[in-house]
C-alpha cells in the first residue's frame, strides 16, 4: 500500500519475520514455563513434560505435576490465546474503523463484561456464573451498540463509535453503582480484584470453553484479513467495486466480540494490548492487514505471556495484569507514536 510490496518495515521478508516471531513465542513460552513462585530446576520440568511420552521414572511429587499441568500450562495457554485474540481483534477493529487509535473495547464489550461479572459476584457467587454473565453481558453490550448505531442509516461507522461510548458509559456506571452498594466486606474486594484482571484463575476447564471461541475468532479474522483491506478504501469505493462491506463489518464485529468477551471472561479486563500490539505490528510490516494480522497474532501472544510471567514472578504477591499491561503499554504506545510515524 505504501510501497512495502514484499519487504517489511525492518527489511525482513514476511516469511522470515513470521518465522522469527514464532521462535520468539516458543522461547518466551518455554521461559515462562520454567519460571514461577515454586522453584523447579529446568531439567526436572523437561522430564515431567516428557514423562507421558517416554518411559521416565516419576521421582517428583504430584504437587509438582499439578503446578505444571494444572497451573502453569493452562495459564500459559490462556496468556497466548488472550494476547493473540485481543491483538488481532484490536487490529481488525482498527481496520474496520480506519483509525489506528481504536481499541478492541470500543464497542463496549469490556464495560458490559465488567457489569456482568459484578452482578454475578453480587448475586450468585460462583465462578461459572461470573464467566457466563461476563461473557453474556459483553455480547449484550456490543449488540446494544450495534442496534443503537443502526437507528440512523447515514454514517454507521461514526454512529458505531458514538453508540459504543454511550453503551460503555452506561454499563460502567452500572458497575460503579454495584461497587458502591456492594457489601464492602465480602463482595467489593472480589469485584475490585476481578476488574483489575488476572490470569491467575485460568484453569484447563476454562480453556476448554473459552479457548476454542478465541481460537475460532482469531482464525476467521486471519482468513478474511485481505477483505479488511477493502474497507480501508472507504465504504463507497468498496461498494462501487461490488464488495459487501456490511457483511465484512458484521463478521469482524462478531469475531472480535467473541474473542474479547471470551478473553474477558477468563482474564478479567486486560487493557492496552489491542492498541499497542497492532501498532508495533504496523511498524514492522506496514498497514496492510494481509501481512499485519499474522504478525500481530504472534507478537500479541508473546507479549501477554511475557507480561503475565512478570506479573506472577516479580513480587511475592500477584501483580494484577491489567495494571501491568497499562503500565507497560501506555509508555510504549507514547514512545511509538513519537518515534515512528508508521504508515497507516
Amino acid at each position, binding site marked *: 500500500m505504501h510501497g512495502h510490496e514484499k519487504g517489511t518495515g525492518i527489511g525482513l521478508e514476511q516469511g522470515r519475520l513470521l518465522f522469527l516471531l514464532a521462535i520468539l513465542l516458543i522461547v518466551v513460552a518455554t521461559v515462562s514455563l520454567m519460571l*514461577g*513462585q*515454586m522453584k523447579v530446576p529446568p531439567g526436572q520440568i523437561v522430564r515431567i513434560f516428557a514423562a507421558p511420552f517416554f518411559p521416565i521414572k516419576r521421582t517428583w*511429587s*504430584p*504437587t509438582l*505435576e*499439578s*503446578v505444571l499441568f*494444572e*497451573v*502453569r500450562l493452562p*495459564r500459559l495457554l490462556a496468556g497466548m490465546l488472550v494476547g493473540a485474540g485481543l491483538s488481532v481483534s484490536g487490529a481488525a477493529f482498527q481496520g474496520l474503523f480506519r483509525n489506528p487509535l481504536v481499541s478492541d473495547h470500543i464497542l463496549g464489550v469490556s464495560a458490559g463484561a465488567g457489569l456482568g461479572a459484578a452482578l454475578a*459476584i*453480587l*448475586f*450468585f*457467587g*460462583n*465462578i461459572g456464573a*461470573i464467566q457466563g454473565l461476563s461473557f453474556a453481558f459483553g455480547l449484550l453490550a456490543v449488540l446494544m451498540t450495534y442496534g443503537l448505531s443502526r437507528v440512523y442509516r447515514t454514517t454507521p461507522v461514526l454512529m458505531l463509535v458514538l453508540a459504543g461510548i454511550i453503551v460503555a458509559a452506561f454499563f460502567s456506571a452500572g458497575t460503579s453503582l454495584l*461497587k*458502591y*452498594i*456492594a*457489601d*464492602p*466486606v*465480602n*463482595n*467489593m*474486594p*472480589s*469485584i*475490585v*480484584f*476481578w476488574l*483489575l484482571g*488476572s490470569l*491467575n*484463575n485460568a*484453569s*484447563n*476447564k476454562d480453556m476448554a470453553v473459552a479457548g476454542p471461541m478465541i481460537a475460532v475468532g482469531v482464525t476467521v479474522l486471519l482468513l478474511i484479513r485481505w477483505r479488511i483491506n477493502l474497507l480501508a478504501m472507504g465504504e463507497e469505493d468498496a461498494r462501487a467495486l461490488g464488495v459487501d462491506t456490511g457483511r465484512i463489518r458484521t463478521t469482524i464485529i462478531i469475531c472480535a466480540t467473541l474473542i474479547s468477551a471470551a478473553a474477558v471472561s477468563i482474564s478479567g479486563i486486560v487493557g492496552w494490548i489491542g492498541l499497542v500490539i497492532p501498532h508495533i505490528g504496523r511498524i514492522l510490516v506496514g498497514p496492510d492487514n494481509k501481512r499485519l494480522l499474522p504478525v500481530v497474532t504472534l507478537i500479541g501472544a508473546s507479549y501477554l505471556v511475557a507480561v503475565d510471567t512478570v506479573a*506472577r514472578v516479580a513480587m*511475592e*504477591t*500477584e501483580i*494484577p495484569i491489567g495494571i501491568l499491561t497499562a503500565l507497560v503499554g501506555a509508555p510504549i504506545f507514547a514512545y511509538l507514536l513519537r518515534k515512528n510515524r508508521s504508515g497507516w
Partner: protein
Amino acid sequence: MCISLKKRWLVFCVAVLLLPMQSVGQTGTGTGAKTRYITDMQGRRVQVADPLERVALFGGPTGQMIYVLGARKQICAVTSSLKGSELVRAFDPTAGSLPGPRSTNGHINVEELLLTDPQLVIAGTLDGSIVEKKSRIPVAYTESTMEENFESLKREVRFYADVFQKHERGERYISYLNRTVALLRSRTQAIPADKRKKVFNGYSQSHLVTLGGDTFMHERILTAGCIDATAGISTAGAKEGLHMGLSELSMERVLAWDPDILVIDFGKPEDLYKDSRWKTVKAVRNGQVFKQPVGVFIWDRPTAEAAVLYPLWLAKTAYPEYFTDVNLVKEVKRFYMECMSFDLSDDQAHALLDGSFGIAFNNTPGRR
C-alpha cells in the same frame, strides 16, 4: 455623671469582648454543657460533650463495639454495613433505621450526618478528615491499620470504653479475650511441631486473595496453635480498591505451601473438592476446606468478636482431639450473650459457624 459614663463605657467594652467568647462556647459544646477531654487512638486530645449521647460511629469492623460496650443508645449514626448485618438485625431491629451516612471508606453523606446532630464522630483518617473539612463536629480518630494485634485491640476497646464511659463492659470483654487466648495457648502448646496444621485463608472468587503474615491474622492463627502459611508475605500496606491488607497470590505458591486447612469466603468447599487445580492440596484431599464464619461481621476482619472466636473456631477445627470439651455452638452462644447480650438460638449459632449469615447492603441481599 462623668464617672458613670466611663463606667458604662467600660461595661460595654467588657461585654463586647466577652460576647464572641460566649458564642464560641455555645457552638462548641452546647448551652452551658459540661465537657471533658478524650484522647483518640492517634493521640490527639479532643474536647467532647459530657455525657456523650449522640455519637456517629464510622468504620466497619469497629461498629460492633457499641454492642460489646452496651453503648447502643449513645449512637446516632453508623456505617451502613453494620445496619446490614443479619445478626445485628436479629437482635437490634431498630439498628436498621439508624442513619447510615457513611457507606464505604471515603463515602460520607455529610448532610445526612449533620441531620443526625452528632456530638462526636469516631472515624478513620480518611472519613474523619472529610467530616472535619465539611463540618464543625469534633472528630476522634481511630487507627486504621491491618497490623493490629490483641494488645492494640485492647487499647481500642479501652478507647471506646472511655468515649462511652463504659469501662466495666470494656474490661469484661478484655478479660473474656484474655481467658480465651490463655486457654488456647495452654492447650495448644503441647502440640509437637510436626503435628501442627498449616492454615491458608484463601478469599475472593479465586481463593487466592489473602491476609499476609504482617496482619492481625498472623497472631490469630498462631494463637490457635496453627502455622500461618502466609507468614513470609507482607500485605498490611496493600490497598486494592478500598480494601486494606489483602493481596492476591499465585496459585502455585499455595500449591507449594500445601496447607492442611483452607478457609474460604466465597462459594462452597464442594467447589474446591471438584476443582482439579486444587486436588493435590492436603486440605482438599482431606476434606479440610471451611467457609469463614460470619457474625456481626465476617471473621477475617480485625473485630472484637473475631479476636475471640476465630482462634477458638480454628483451634477446635484443626485439633478436635485437644478440644473435646469445647462445643463451638455453645461457645458462640456464650460469647454473644456475655459480651453483646445477643441471645442466639442453636440454629443461629449454626448458621453463623457455617458462614451463612450475610450482610445486606443498602437493602441489596447479602450473597451468602
